[in-house]
């Protein structure tokens, strides 16, 4: 199909997630044990400079957000209007925002929720999409056609339109927000895994399960999902990146989470209100944090794809 030639999931911010190459699997890999495939994959991954850079950024960010607040202790609970909009100084390394919160301290706390929400939404979407795609392919026939047309229909709704529509209708709290973000993200993995499963289900070992009387559920869980795990991993890291961006966009549009759950997008959104005042420290740090996180996940996804692509491995 011509549609498959172009990359898989066009993501929110105009990133055409170039996931098509990820569908390559270990062709003729029977002779090798799974251990050596894993080792080979790991070695290729570590030799990849992008991967190392992505991982390093991610480790730094996690330490910054989750360990940082124990070292750089700030008050992020009570409003302190008397301290608002201080420029960076010894007392407040990145200044304070319009509500008197220390910006550096808030960056850490907001980072926790931003990363957690991104991970939760990304994994939820990946798990649901994987099962949906695998079930669709294994079931085949009319079920497959109907399930996939539903994916097509949802795909034709631009992500941000759907996101705004859902936020307007449901006014999400934290768990609901994760579901809403996952809801716009699961279509990509569903299509990818279905494509993969369509080739996998014709393999002898899957046929053997059928002949031996194994259920379709067993085929999906024990054979399709483990064999598609490479594709799924690559896609999940892009999904996480997209979810973080989507959450930021929603926050900017005023449809994000309430200020009681600080997020980077929320900080940026507040910062944009004061650009004409020249309070640059409220505009740049949170944006840089978002870009770093998203770059890190995109790097990792790209590197994972390369390391799972047998053609690029040194054998």
């Amino acid at each position, binding site marked *: 199909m011509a549609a498959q030639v172009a990359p898989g999931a066009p993501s929110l911010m105009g990133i055409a997630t170039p996931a098509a190459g990820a569908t390559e699997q270990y062709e003729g890999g029977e002779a090798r044990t799974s251990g050596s495939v894993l080792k080979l994959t790991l070695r290729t991954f570590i030799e990849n400079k992008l991967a190392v850079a992505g991982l390093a950024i991610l480790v730094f960010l996690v330490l910054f957000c989750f360990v940082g607040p124990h070292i750089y202790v700030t008050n992020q609970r009570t409003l302190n209007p008397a301290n608002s909009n201080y420029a960076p100084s010894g007392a407040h390394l990145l200044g304070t925002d319009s509500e008197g919160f220390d910006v550096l301290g808030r960056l850490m706390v907001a980072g926790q929720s931003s990363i957690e929400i991104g991970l939760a939404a990304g994994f939820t979407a990946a798990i649901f999409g994987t099962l949906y795609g695998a079930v669709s392919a294994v079931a085949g026939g009319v079920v497959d056609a109907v399930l996939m047309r539903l994916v097509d229909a949802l795909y034709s709704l631009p992500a941000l339109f759907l996101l705004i529509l859902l936020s307007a209708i449901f006014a999400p709290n934290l768990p609901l927000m994760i579901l809403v973000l996952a809801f716009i993200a699961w279509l990509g993995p569903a299509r990818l895994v279905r494509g993969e499963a369509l080739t996998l289900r014709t393999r002898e070992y899957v046929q053997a399960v059928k002949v031996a009387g194994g259920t379709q559920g067993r085929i999906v869980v024990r054979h399709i999902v483990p064999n598609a795990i490479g594709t799924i991993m690559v896609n999940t890291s892009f999904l996480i990146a997209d979810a973080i961006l989507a959450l930021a*966009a929603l926050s900017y549009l005023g449809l994000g989470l309430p200020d009681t759950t600080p997020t980077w997008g929320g900080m940026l959104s507040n910062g944009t209100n004061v650009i004409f005042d020249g309070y640059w420290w409220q505009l740049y740090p949170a944006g840089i944090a978002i870009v770093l996180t998203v770059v890190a996940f995109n790097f990792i996804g790209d590197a994972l794809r390369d390391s799972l692509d047998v053609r690029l491995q040194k054998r």
Partner: protein
Amino acid sequence: MTGYIIRRLLQSVAVLLLVTLIMFALFHMLPGNPARAELGVKAQPAAIAAFDKMQGLDKPVWYQYYLYLDHLAHGNLGFSYIQNASVALLFAQRFPKSILLVGLATLVAVVIAIPLGVMQAVRRNKPEDYFFTGTSFVFYSFPTFWLGIILIEIFSIQAHWLPPEAPEGTNVAQILANWKGLVLPVLTLALVSIAAYSRYMRSSMIESLAQDYIRTARAKGVGRRAILLRHALRNSLIPMATLIGLSLPSVLSGAVITESVFNYPGIGLLFWQSAQSDVPVLLGLTLVAAVGVIVGNLVADVLYAVLDPRIRY
């Protein structure tokens, strides 16, 4: 070929019907009673009954869906009680302005991304390739709204070169007359696309350059330039055509953000302003966007089949 187009057309119609079903379901998931939402909490029961009758809300659900489809077939996309105008009218007023923004941004993106991708493919794994690869990665990791705000900060607030807001105007001519205000919105929307398109162009070009016909051309003594432009580039452009068609949904999403940042009076701004309370507008515009995307995909697929003579269905 004709068979393929017909099959693809039928598929699109099926998808379109499903989209209407989703929109209809979303409308019915709205909390509260539509009559009370439109007429206010103090509406008399008789007025509510009359409203329900007028809107067909007293009929069975399947009939309401039929009514909805019937309305759509007659170009009735719903009615905004807040703006006291039909969604179709609101859409028609803003559509040309959004097309202008999206069209210009796509044009700019293509004009920059294609040569950039070709250059990167030719100078593959050289410093300049690494530089632009890195830049692309950063740009497509940018939140669009932040990019817009930074451009405002640099070019409007610091340098005073360009206005921070998009031109106001009731029609395209007025907006074009004030073209300076268009520069930043178009740039914002284009930069993210450039990152994505140039990456794609680069890999497409690398793939073309590795083909046997390139080696043949080289062997028979075709000039370097001719190989690049006539043999490699032309074949690499085919997947680009598809990509541009398929990236329509993300461009539309970007337009919502860009129009909100620059206060550009297009469909995206209308959509955002309706997000708080005007659900009929949201549903109507989402449906129109979906139609645009479905048609875009259809055109991209058919174009692909037409442009590439190797593809036979």
